[in-house]
């Protein structure tokens, strides 16, 4: 009967873990790797990032200069390592501050309803109706070149999506029966918000935060590429790609910073997917 059925053996625990968290592990590895690189850059880099050696300009990758040198003879490898600092700093700070502010706006709007809700959401719409990168460009140009100014410009366009999502999530929670139950139990609004609404609404926000860091890194690199991000001698990947974009023969100048951007964004995306799976309490217990 059932014993004679040709059934595949149940998958092993390791195979299941791999299927569930494999990509997330890779993502976490990449991200962790870049964080280590950023922290240890001064010790890992063979040269100072701004060390100009014009006699050695545009050297191809070699034992001396692993990733070659750029038009000013600076060591591309060292600049790549230091570039990780700026990219991570910009990406994480834009998303963290943007998410914090946006979530606050969204949750307050959803809980207050009425006039406050309408006013906050129209403000959000106002920002959202501009193409983000163009608006950020305009603001950054107005504020002047510099890492801090570019981060501020990005923050202005970054928070609305979190406000939108946070409001939608909080509204869904508001009508959940367990929130109604909490109201009937006579709990105070702060507790209902803090214990019942926020913990159940936070999951998608955390996922968006993780996925969005990669996005912010690309945008920042993009702004730098257009000449707005960092003040010139500073090593930054977007600016490095820009420096190399006309050097067709010297492919290494633009390629390696581009690959760096690619890997770090992929890393955050994999990690974000993993966080999403992990935050689902049903998936976790399996």
């Amino acid at each position, binding site marked *: 009967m059932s014993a004679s059925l040709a059934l595949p053996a149940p998958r092993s625990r390791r195979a299941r873990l791999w299927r569930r968290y494999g990509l997330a592990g890779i993502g976490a590895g990449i991200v962790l790797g870049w964080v280590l690189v950023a922290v240890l850059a001064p010790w890992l880099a063979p040269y100072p990032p701004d060390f100009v050696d014009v006699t050695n300009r545009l050297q191809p990758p070699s034992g001396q200069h692993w990733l070659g040198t750029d038009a000013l003879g600076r060591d591309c490898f060292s600049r790549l390592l230091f570039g990780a600092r700026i990219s991570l700093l910009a990406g994480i700070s834009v998303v963290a501050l943007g998410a914090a502010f946006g979530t606050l706006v969204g949750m307050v709007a959803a809980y207050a309803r009425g006039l406050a809700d309408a006013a906050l959401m129209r403000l959000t719409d106002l920002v959202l109706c501009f193409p983000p990168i163009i608006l950020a460009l305009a603001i950054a140009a107005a504020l002047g070149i510099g890492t801090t100014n570019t981060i501020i410009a990005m923050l202005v366009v970054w928070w609305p999506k979190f406000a939108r999502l946070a409001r939608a999530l909080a509204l869904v929670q508001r009508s959940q029966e367990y929130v109604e*139950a909490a109201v009937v139990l006579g709990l105070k609004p702060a507790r209902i918000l803090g214990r019942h609404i926020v913990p159940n609404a936070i999951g998608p926000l955390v996922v968006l935060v993780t996925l969005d860091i990669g996005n912010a890194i690309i945008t920042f690199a993009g702004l730098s590429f257009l000449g707005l991000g960092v003040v010139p001698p500073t090593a930054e990947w977007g600016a490095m790609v820009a420096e190399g974009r006309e050097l067709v023969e010297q492919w290494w100048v633009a390629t390696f910073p581009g690959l760096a951007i690619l890997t770090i964004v992929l890393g955050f995306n994999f990690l974000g997917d993993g966080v999403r799976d992990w935050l689902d309490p049903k998936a976790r217990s399996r």
Partner: protein
Amino acid sequence: MTASDRREAKPEAVPVLEVEDLRTVFLTDAGPVRAVDGVSFTVGAGETLGIVGESGSGKSVTALSLMRLLEEPARIVGGRLRFQGRDLLAMRPDELRALRGDRMAMVFQDPMTGLNPVIRILRQLTEPMTGHGRFTPPEARRRAIGLLGRMGITAPERSVSRFPHEFSGGMRQRVMLAMGFANDPALLIADEPTTALDVTIQAQILDLLRQLNAEFGTAIVLISHDLGVIGSVCRRVAVMYAGEVVEEAPTAEVLEDPRHPYAWALVNAVPRIDQPLGADRRLVSIEGAPPDALALPPGCRFAPRCPFKVERCEREHPPLAEVAPGRLARCWVTQAGQVLPKSGGAGFGGARPAPAAAEPLLSVRGLVKHFPLPRESFFAPKRVVHAVNGIDLDLKRGETLGIVGESGCGKSTLARLVTRIHAPTAGSITFDGQEIASASPAAIRPLRRRMQMVFQDPYASLNPRMTIGDTLAEPLVAHGLARRGAEVRERVGELLATVGLNPAWVSRFPHEFSGGQRQRISIARALALQPELVVADEPISALDVNIQAQILNLMLDLQQRMGLTYLFIAHDLAVVRHLCDRVAVLYLGQVMESAPAEALFARPLHPYTAVLISAVPVPGRTRVVLQGEPPSTLVLPTGCPFRTRCPIARPVCETPPPLAEHEAGRWAACHFPGEFGHAGVAA
């Protein structure tokens, strides 16, 4: 005598469907789950067979197996399936496609997702007809319109050009049935076709199924968890448990004298609207849960829960054998000739104490709640949902008041107004002498202790991120009823024990519990503050019948022990009759009739009450089927709200009848109370 009876009198040579030892497994990480494990039955031409069982018993998987609609990880691993003599299991995919929707059709449970939302009704109907080459497009169009008319859709010529979202749930289920009958199939498989519908709409659909079977001679396999539904359509029934058929017999005989203890439990777990109320209100409920499909017991699969088991049951797996002419049961006990008792369970003994006639605990006067809707466009008029339109109610201490009505009648809104989750638009709510209709949230908070609520959906009413220990401790701490630490832990343990759960489970999360267990937790949470009034909003409608019986028994027990007052909201009239002292019938947010439960069901004064009672599926009873659906709550009818559907409406009904006391304790809002009452139902 129906047509199906006549047809069975001269049996045809080849049955429509023969199922022999069907085995379907789900290949999971943990091992193969045997969802259907050796099911056999035969359906002759024009016959009707019901399949009944609780969730997870394998009834839906059986239906999908019959249509060969299963996808990985499910796989049919054994048995034979023959449709009109042809082997279904040997068919190629294209042969199956030619058969599906043509000779054999299926109607699914959810009318909301069963239709493609972007395709007009006409094309959804004509596609199977032209696709199978039976009709030319003009013929198909004519037939589609004819079928819709036959299914009771008004103005089918116009309706066919609509989209599914313009139809209500009941209408969509009619469209699905029309699709099922599009090619005049030999077999229709209906998987819980009425579960998502109101009782009045359910009655219409069941009547339709019966008529279609009689007229077209289509064999029907009807899958349901409700024996009453099956009894009103199907002559025979197969009762499934843990992937097996445990009893197969004529439906009427199973309802009268079940021969398998599981069938016995199913029959006795539901209160019957057509039987006298006993002094003992406890229902039969069997403990435990269905066996783990990965580790089935070696003997009878029902043995671990069976109240009648003998020693042999745990050792040997019983075969499905004849226990009486035309009756099969898979039970050692009844095969040995033993008879199962009429009803079981130890009760309270004696009648329930009549509630003391005192000041009402809860009193509602002229309660109104309107929900504004967003405008459809900037210049469109404001739209308002008239959910509750002037309700008067009194609820005495220790009493159970049942609120019944179709969906959209405002019963859930009423529950949320009484507990002040919503603020009423107008009217007064007095709880133990205190006016709470317009009190601020902070002013009500101290009263919350005395007034609690149990919600409908056990999957949505518990915070998924809190352990049940935290869930139960929260109200205790918030109201300062227990100090954190040992005192709270002790109290939480007591609460769990009170509702029949293991106190050691405090650190588990809600998703680790079944629906019935979650509903117990929900009740425990409501009891944590030792309330006087518990508002229960459809607390059992999401549960299997056996679990329903357990929860109802628990609620009865708790009322006895703690002297609780219940406001019990339900759509199941038999349950309300069984549990409640008084019943109020709502229609379009107004009370149509309010009376002591027994009197109301024995002799309804309001015509709406009469048709509502008559819609409850009880085998062998003629019903007064209420046509149409409740009008929209956006624009209320003038005069008596029920007059647009009322079978005895007259010109005078254009003036709204007041809710008046026509007999002692019996209130009705009708100009002709009692005129369309018992006589109409019994006819």
